[in-house]
């Protein structure tokens, strides 16, 4: 995992993640300020017009940007589900979209114009090839709109297209729980747990946990939300078995439990963005790039 591009390029501490967003936002905001200033100097505006400009063309704050990104990331999920794409490809689409807007600001690229491009590239990257014409037929925009930012997207992704999602670890833990708790788990119950957790993983991928934790840690956090007793028992047994072999690379149970609970609270505290909020932020985003329209 440490050799993977996901670990090398896309794993951050909370602080580093915040710092990246602040930087991305600042670069775009500085451009906005400059453009608005130029606009004011070029136009002969009344005081009232200047007041409106100042009130309605402020660049987006980092938090407002994040709301808009999350709102459209949800749209990526809905549209790719609507296209009946396999679960992992939906997850890859969401991941591509979020990463693009970690490197670029919504004030530089309209998130609407990246939604389909991220899904299209995710299909290609996951060997689920759909020609752009048939894609354009199913989705809304035309082929030029889909292809317009493909290169820019690939570059923003730092050319890392292989993503480890928490789904395979879910399958792995489904098997290993049977091994460690042999004979003590009801298989039907495990099957239902598996299905519920699979859905929850897709929700979790919409949050920042994908940057802060490894896929198996996210899976264990989701399993913990689903059935705390079962997972705690599983981990206690698994690590207590190992702890007899005092070898240097034994993962410490308490450390892992802290990480899992940290991840769990991250997933649970995530709030979705209302359409109303998104609309207001999108309007501000539009006007700060198009003061003449205002």
């Amino acid at each position, binding site marked *: 995992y440490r050799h993977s591009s996901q670990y090398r390029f896309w794993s951050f501490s909370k602080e580093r993640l915040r710092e990246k967003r602040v930087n991305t936002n600042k670069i775009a905001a500085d451009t906005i300020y400059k453009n608005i200033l130029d606009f004011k100097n070029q136009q002969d505006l009344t005081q009232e017009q200047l007041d409106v400009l100042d009130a309605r063309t402020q660049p987006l704050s980092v938090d407002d940007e994040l709301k808009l990104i999350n709102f459209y990331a949800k749209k990526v999920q809905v549209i790719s589900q609507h296209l009946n794409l396999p679960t992992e490809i939906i997850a890859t689409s969401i991941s591509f979209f979020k990463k693009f807007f970690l490197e670029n600001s919504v004030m530089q690229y309209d998130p609407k114009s990246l939604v389909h491009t991220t899904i299209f590239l995710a299909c290609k990257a996951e060997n689920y090839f759909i020609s752009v014409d048939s894609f354009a037929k199913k989705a809304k925009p035309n082929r030029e709109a889909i292809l317009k930012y493909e290169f820019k997207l690939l570059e923003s992704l730092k050319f890392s297209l292989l993503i480890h999602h928490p789904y*395979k670890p*879910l399958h*792995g833990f489904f*098997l290993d729980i049977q091994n460690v708790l042999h004979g003590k788990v009801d*298989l039907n119950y495990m099957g239902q747990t598996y299905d519920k957790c699979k859905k929850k993983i897709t929700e979790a991928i919409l949050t920042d946990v994908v940057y802060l934790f490894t896929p*198996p840690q996210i*899976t264990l956090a989701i399993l913990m939300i689903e059935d705390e007793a079962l997972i705690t028992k599983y981990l206690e047994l698994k690590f207590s078995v190992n702890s007899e072999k005092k070898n240097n690379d034994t993962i410490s149970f308490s450390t892992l439990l802290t990480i899992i609970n940290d991840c769990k609270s991250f997933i649970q505290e995530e709030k979705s963005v209302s359409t109303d909020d998104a609309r207001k932020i999108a309007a501000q985003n539009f006007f700060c790039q198009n003061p003449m329209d205002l």
Partner: protein
Amino acid sequence: NTIPRFKLDEKLYSDPFIKDLENRKEFVASGFRTDYVYERVLTEAFM
């Protein structure tokens, strides 16, 4: 280093989904192996 970092014991797993695939003609003929599937998902889990 070819020593795996975990034990894979197929007898311990009951995976109806994989068991079903294992008996299908086109899977048997293709060389489908359940141990490869288990190894893959366990590696991703323990990674």
